[in-house]
């Protein structure tokens, strides 16, 4: 639902409360770019009208493993409007592909040789003067292959799992201690491949401005990292690469790295000597920009009769490509979440003929929490203890991994807030015992956690003569409302209304900020905004002869200045080393399950975040709601299916690959503990992008169990699994 308040650029009660902690969570700034987004004025990468632009369409391999025997591009080349058909046979040298000391495995190098590693791997890029002509010509490219036997099935290849170089087996106390506990459970959980599928398709427009100068308008989560990758690939000076991405239509991790098709677009622009626009198709999105890998997991939990954990064993095997190891922290959550004296984890990879996965919102942890929090629920039934009570009995007061105190942790309050909101007291511990209008009713919960970080960022803050404050830094906003949060912080610091503040971002020529990812932007860039504003205020004070004034216009005028500016590098202090910092979430779900048809309806969803002080309440609530919806989709719908005979996806479109639509989602309640973290950064804020999703899938599965007595250990929970 798009409410009018999104259009409302006014800052409401926000300004009135001066102290951070007292501000009620519902207040705060509406999305500063909301009007631009809902009116279509916000420009996304594919929407720039660049003079002389040409259009690219990718052609993908139709076999899954082997080599290209013959490529016929003649008909495509002769088709109307076609400017070039780029393949491994004619692709210009990409110098960065040929540097010394290349590791044995690494990112896919596009159009470098005849080898096929996965189905859909680009074998050609057709460039034409219109998109339609490029698309038509792409259908004329014909390839013959030497096919080899491929492997795409994780389950039948689990015996080939190997421990990747980066991952270490972990043991605290005794290994497999759960086995000798009086109460124990041991279960396997399977998560299918999930694809990020942001609304906006990946798109790049690439233009060569000189022999060593490149401009791209690109969908990316990090303009600086894209700048670096392109400079490295084409061996041009980094400052000669300009990357622009002021708006990003969702990414969830899919735009964290520079993908082969982006390199191909830049190479193609050199070939045709004109700008090239390449927009991936929805089908391309399934094979070109990563996904959350299918992962098999096994959890063993052992406890005393009164529910104290004695041992946790967590094993996971995830899929990766044959050319690159993608690892994620799927088992880490079991090392961190509960106070168990004995914990051991093992993480392995299975190399398959698929493209490389990439972090997807709550990377690793969302996968791990699905298993761990399902297993905890199973244990609660085994013990006949309320699932929240079981978690409280195993609450970690200090970080079990490092032994350090937490920078802040209000998880117990989060449990309470959520339980009250969903009406947990209505829940019956006995599965299948509550019905309403012929539907089975069940309640479930799941906990999430993710590291809280702060790294370095630089912000320029410039006060103009008319009282406009301009903030500038390279960071992107992939949807969480970074601009809004930054404007909120600056407004509070400077004591000026939000509509007097402009936040410029998504441009590699601006001062550096990290890539948007890992739930660290509010903490990192927010701190830099905070520090820059303080420095600017100091500078005003100096100019003003040592007196504080928020009438910046007057001060500038009085001293005959057109503007006053600071550029501030902000870094986390060394004191962080003394603490373990995490954000926490608890998700509560009420489902109705139709006993005859197996249809699951999520009737209520409540998510509570302990994410420190909430800097931007409205966008924070949206963030939590979106994450919860993503988790509901993970639990009930999302699954990329490969026909292993062909190694090819059979549902790579939005009709067959299901994500939740409005009718599937109830009013999601987002609640915040809203207590500042005293150590992480000056705002007291912790990240929340990842925890919004981590733990939701288990909460849904647990609710389904509570409703039906059926424990589904392989997602998604579609009706067929419940009848």
């Amino acid at each position, binding site marked *: 639902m798009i409410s009018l308040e999104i259009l409302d650029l006014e800052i409401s009660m926000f300004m009135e409360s001066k102290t951070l902690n007292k501000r009620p969570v519902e207040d705060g700034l509406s999305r500063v770019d909301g009007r631009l987004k809902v009116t279509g004025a916000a420009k996304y990468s594919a929407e720039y009208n660049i003079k002389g632009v040409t259009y690219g369409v990718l052609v993908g391999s*139709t076999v899954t493993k082997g080599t290209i025997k013959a490529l016929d591009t003649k008909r495509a080349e002769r088709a109307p409007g076609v400017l070039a058909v780029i393949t491994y046979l004619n692709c210009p040298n990409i110098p960065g592909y040929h540097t010394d000391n290349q590791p044995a495995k690494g990112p896919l190098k596009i159009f470098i040789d005849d080898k096929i590693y996965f189905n859909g791997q680009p074998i050609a890029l057709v460039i034409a003067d219109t998109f*339609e002509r490029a*698309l*038509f010509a792409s*259908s004329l490219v014909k390839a013959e292959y030497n096919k080899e036997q491929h492997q795409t099935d994780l389950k039948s290849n689990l015996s080939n799992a190997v421990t990747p170089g980066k991952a270490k087996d972990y043991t605290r106390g005794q290994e497999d201690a759960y086995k000798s506990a009086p109460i124990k459970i041991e279960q396997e959980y399977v998560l299918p491949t999930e694809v990020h599928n942001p609304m906006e398709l990946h798109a790049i427009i690439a233009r060569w401005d000189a022999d060593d100068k490149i401009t791209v308008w690109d969908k990316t989560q990090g303009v600086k990292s894209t700048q670096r990758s392109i400079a490295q690939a084409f061996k041009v000076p980094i400052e000669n690469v300009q990357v622009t991405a002021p708006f990003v239509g969702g990414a969830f991790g899919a735009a964290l790295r520079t993908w082969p098709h982006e390199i191909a677009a830049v190479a193609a622009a050199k070939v045709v000597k004109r700008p090239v626009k390449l927009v991936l198709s929805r089908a391309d999105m399934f094979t070109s920009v990563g996904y959350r890998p299918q992962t098999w997991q096994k959890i063993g939990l052992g406890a005393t009769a009164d529910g104290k954990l004695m041992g946790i064993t967590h094993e996971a095997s995830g899929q990766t490509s044959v050319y690159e190891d993608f690892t994620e922290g799927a088992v880490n959550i079991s090392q961190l979440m509960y106070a168990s004296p004995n914990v051991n984890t093992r993480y392995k990879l299975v190399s398959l003929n698929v493209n490389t996965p990439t972090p997807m919102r709550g990377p690793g942890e969302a996968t791990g929490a699905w298993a761990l929090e399902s297993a905890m629920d199973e244990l609660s039934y085994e013990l006949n203890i309320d699932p929240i009570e079981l978690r409280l009995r195993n609450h970690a007061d200090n970080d079990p991994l490092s032994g350090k105190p937490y920078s802040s942790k209000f998880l117990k309050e989060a449990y309470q807030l959520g339980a009250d909101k969903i009406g947990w007291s209505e829940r019956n511990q006995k599965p299948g015992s509550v019905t309403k*209008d*012929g539907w089975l009713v069940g309640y479930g919960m799941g906990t999430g956690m993710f590291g809280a970080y702060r790294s370095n960022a630089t912000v320029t803050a410039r006060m103009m003569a008319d009282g406009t404050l301009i903030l500038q830094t390279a960071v992107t906003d992939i949807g969480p409302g970074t601009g809004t949060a930054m404007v909120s912080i600056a407004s509070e610091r400077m004591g000026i209304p939000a509509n007097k503040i402009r936040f410029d971002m998504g441009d590699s020529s601006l001062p550096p900020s990290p890539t948007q990812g890992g739930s660290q932007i509010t903490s990192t860039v927010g701190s830099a905004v905070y520090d820059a504003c303080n420095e600017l205020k100091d500078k005003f004070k100096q100019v003003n002869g040592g007196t504080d004034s928020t009438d910046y216009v007057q001060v500038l005028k009085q001293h005959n200045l057109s503007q006053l500016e600071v550029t501030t590098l902000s870094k986390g202090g060394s004191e962080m080393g003394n603490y373990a910092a995490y954000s926490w979430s608890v998700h509560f779900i009420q489902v109705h399950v*139709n006993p*005859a*048809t*197996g*249809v699951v*309806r999520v009737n209520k969803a409540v998510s509570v975040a302990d994410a420190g002080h909430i800097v931007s309440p409205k966008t924070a609530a949206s963030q939590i709601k979106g994450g919860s919806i993503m988790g509901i989709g993970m639990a*009930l*719908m999302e699954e990329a*299916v490969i*026909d292993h*005979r*062909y190694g*090819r996806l*059979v*549902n790579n479109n939005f*009709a*067959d690959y*299901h994500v*939740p*639509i*409005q*009718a*599937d989602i109830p009013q999601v309640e987002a609640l915040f503990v809203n207590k500042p973290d005293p150590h992480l950064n000056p705002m007291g804020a912790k990240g929340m992008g990842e925890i919004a999703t981590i733990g939701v899938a288990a909460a849904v599965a647990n609710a389904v169990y509570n409703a039906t007595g059926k424990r589904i250990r392989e997602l998604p929970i*579609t*009706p*067929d699994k419940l*009848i």
Partner: protein
Amino acid sequence: MKQFQYIRPSTQQSVLEAINKPGTKIIAGGTNLVDLMKRGVTAPDKLVDINHLPLKSIASTKTGLHIGALALNSVVSENSLVIEKQPLLSMALKAGASPQLRNMATVGGNMMQRTRCTYFYDITMPCNKREPGSGCGAMEGYNRMHAIFGASQQCIAVHPSDMCVGLAALDAVVVIAGRRGERRIPFTEFHRLPEDHPEMDNHLAKDELIIAVEIPDNNFAKNSYYLKVRDRQSYAFALVSVAAALDISNGVIKQARLAMGGVAHKPWRLLDAEKALIGKTVSEESFKQAALIAMQGAKAYEYNSFKLKLAPATITEALKHASGLV
């Protein structure tokens, strides 16, 4: 997508002449045809846009309801005559696709939409329906959405429409125009089973045009229900759907109509189950018996065996809703 010509005649006669030439295809709402063209499943040389023909009307006749082939799915579903006389059709339509699609989709286009079998859509895969003789990708592949009734060795696809399930249950008649005049066929005989010619979805000749469907008046309005079971609550094709219509007098069933979607190459009318219901009292037990009869001859494949359980459960539930038991 291949380049093509496009014409928009304003008379039925010129449409009929145009479609008589090879390589031509009618376009109505375009919601299915354009997708198929983009995927390369079909590549017409010429599109004949029929949207200027006067075929949008929805009207009461002496014997029933007349609905023009170009009436939009959204308009039909919200038409007061339809809701009053044939609520089952309205329910079936609203269960289909999404509001955006229903705003474009037409009655004729809905009847003519092709299967959603994923192998049919991917031109790199074998599919007898798309390319006769190339094999059936689904038979030993990912066949979760596929048929449990009436399939052949050649093809196990299902017809994806919801509207058609409603029309099949309601004894609708299809009005077809050809160059030699009009003909009418029962709705249940419009679509066909795959047999040895899965490339043919129905009995409409290449040079014919659907101009209307007609639904005879009936006594089902009070006790009708369309139940669609799907993976999400909107914008998903049926795993199984059931159209149920009952004529009940003093708790006894006088007449019954039942059809299923998502189970066969055509809307699957359940005549034996209907017969079994006649004279029965309204009860879950009699509905379950009818459902059992309906399932005779069902055959599942690797990924769709759940339909053997889901289909009878859905029939029973739909009858419970139609009869007011729930």
